């Protein structure tokens, strides 16, 4: 439906297409309570029979004013709040926030802390992708992968629990490094997990990759071209599935990602199946990164010298990381006091969700479900 060579002018997202013949346009309100909208997303669908003529997202049901809260907490106190945005990838949120504040403070976390951060962040990417895979497959009707992925995600959460006591909203990192040294046997357990998990990726792929129905349901569904991706600011696996080899871990390495050897998996078609393949390949790459990080984990302190009361000099920083869902950016303005003057979070889910309308035009209701799933949105992050 979308011409890949088109300019921006075709992105006319306001006027829906006309229904065929004189059939009545059916307006369906999907959500905010709906099993497949991954939270409290409300989508108003305009249908011609089952064909989607246009849709409008209504968001904000989970708005908690995270940015406002940030202005009223000290830098340290705000750290746990960011975990509550993308709660399935809480570690990544924390990583982005801590690094941004470190940049404001002009400190850098010690190498050991950097390595542990990479390990935990990549484990988090695995957990996030697992959750995505399970729920996405469930939306398309395959109920079994959900239980497989949750069984394996449990192992990751156990490592988190042992490390910091929390499983979901971990608050694992501190500004300037880590609060805790790793527990005894951390490396061994991570290694055990990797050797346990590698065949599990094959298991997921065995269930889905060549499954005829899966392929038919996802191929050529929700196509978005690279050009449209960039125009709409869509990042993460969705962008890579459209053929843009762009990953912040490579493009503008943060933490110590430049020390690791990994590939950026890409696909060309930009459909749901390609996004699935990209995410599966990303899981394998994450395993590779974690492997290298565990192997090269240096000894040393885990906390840099940071003042007890943080008063970053006045200034402003935009720093972004490659969260499992795309570019997660923090824009922090400091006025020299203990509290940030302004915290802006650039949530990947929020921006990616804009593409839903474009991706669903002309498709069927069932595809809307598939596309919502493949965008991998977390409403906690969309609404903040």
């Amino acid at each position, binding site marked *: 439906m979308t011409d890949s060579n088109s300019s921006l002018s075709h992105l006319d997202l306001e006027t829906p297409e006309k229904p065929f013949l004189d059939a009545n346009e059916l307006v369906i309100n999907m959500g905010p309570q709906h099993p497949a909208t991954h939270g409290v997303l409300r989508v108003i669908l305009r249908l011609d029979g089952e064909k989607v003529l246009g849709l409008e997202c209504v968001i904000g049901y989970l708005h908690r004013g995270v940015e*406002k809260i940030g202005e009223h907490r000290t830098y340290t106190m705000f750290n746990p709040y960011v975990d509550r945005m993308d709660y399935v990838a809480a570690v990544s949120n924390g990583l982005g926030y801590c690094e941004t504040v470190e940049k404001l403070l002009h400190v850098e976390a010690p190498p050991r802390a950097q390595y542990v951060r990479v390990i935990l962040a990549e484990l988090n990417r695995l957990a996030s992708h697992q959750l995505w895979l399970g729920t996405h497959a469930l939306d398309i009707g395959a109920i079994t992968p959900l239980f497989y992925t949750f069984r394996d995600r449990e192992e990751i959460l156990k490592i988190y629990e042992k490390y910091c006591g929390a499983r979901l909203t971990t608050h694992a990192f501190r500004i300037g490094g880590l609060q805790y040294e790793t527990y005894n046997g951390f490396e061994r357990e991570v290694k055990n997990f990797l050797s346990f998990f590698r065949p599990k990726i094959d298991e997921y792929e065995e269930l889905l990759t060549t499954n005829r129905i899966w392929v038919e349901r996802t191929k050529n569904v929700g196509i978005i071209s690279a050009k449209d991706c960039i125009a709409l600011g869509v990042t993460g696996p969705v962008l890579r599935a459209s053929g843009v080899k762009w990953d912040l871990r490579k493009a503008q390495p943060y933490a110590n990602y430049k020390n690791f050897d990994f590939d950026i998996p890409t696909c060309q078609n930009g459909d749901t199946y390609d996004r699935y393949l990209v995410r599966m390949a990303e899981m394998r790459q994450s395993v590779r990164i974690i492997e290298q990080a565990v192997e090269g984990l240096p000894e040393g302190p885990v906390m840099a010298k940071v003042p007890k009361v943080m008063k970053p000099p006045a200034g402003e920083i935009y720093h972004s990381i490659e969260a499992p869902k795309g570019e997660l950016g923090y824009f922090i303005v400091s006025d020299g006091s203990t509290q940030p003057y302004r915290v802006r979070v650039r949530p990947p889910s929020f921006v990616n969700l804009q593409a839903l309308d474009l991706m669903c035009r002309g498709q069927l209701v069932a595809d809307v479900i598939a596309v919502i799933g493949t965008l991998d949105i977390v409403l906690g992050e969309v609404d903040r």
Partner: protein
Amino acid sequence: MIAKFKSTYGSGIEPLTYAGQNYMVVDRSLIPEILQAMRNEEQFDYCVDITAVHYPKREKQFDVVWVLYSFSRNERIRVKAQIFDGESILSSVPIWAAANWLEREVFDMFGIKFDEHPDMKRILLPEGWKGHPLRKDYGILQQDNEWVQINLGIESGQ
């Protein structure tokens, strides 16, 4: 690049750097032109974020910030414009489609209107809510009590 802009537009542009990050403060009247040039001539084809900062003590109360990124140059830059309270600014949706929701959010949170935006309405807060929460004069516990009472049927949302 910035030098080129500087020579073209003169005093309307003030290039700055902080902690290795480039940004420039641009006069409000130059914004449409500069943004267009950024995208078309300098290949800043990805609008990462649009946001605003409220400085109630300043005369021009708001900073509107565009975070831009260029895939071909692997470079990030911020464009800032200072505007008065109640002043509107031209929408950049025709330049980057991504700006649509981002501008709506700025409007929602700060009350800054974007001219020629296709669908200028609130996005995170419900329609009919009074006040713009990210302004500094909006208290952290403040809420639109009237709206809550009418629409939720409860005394207070807290």
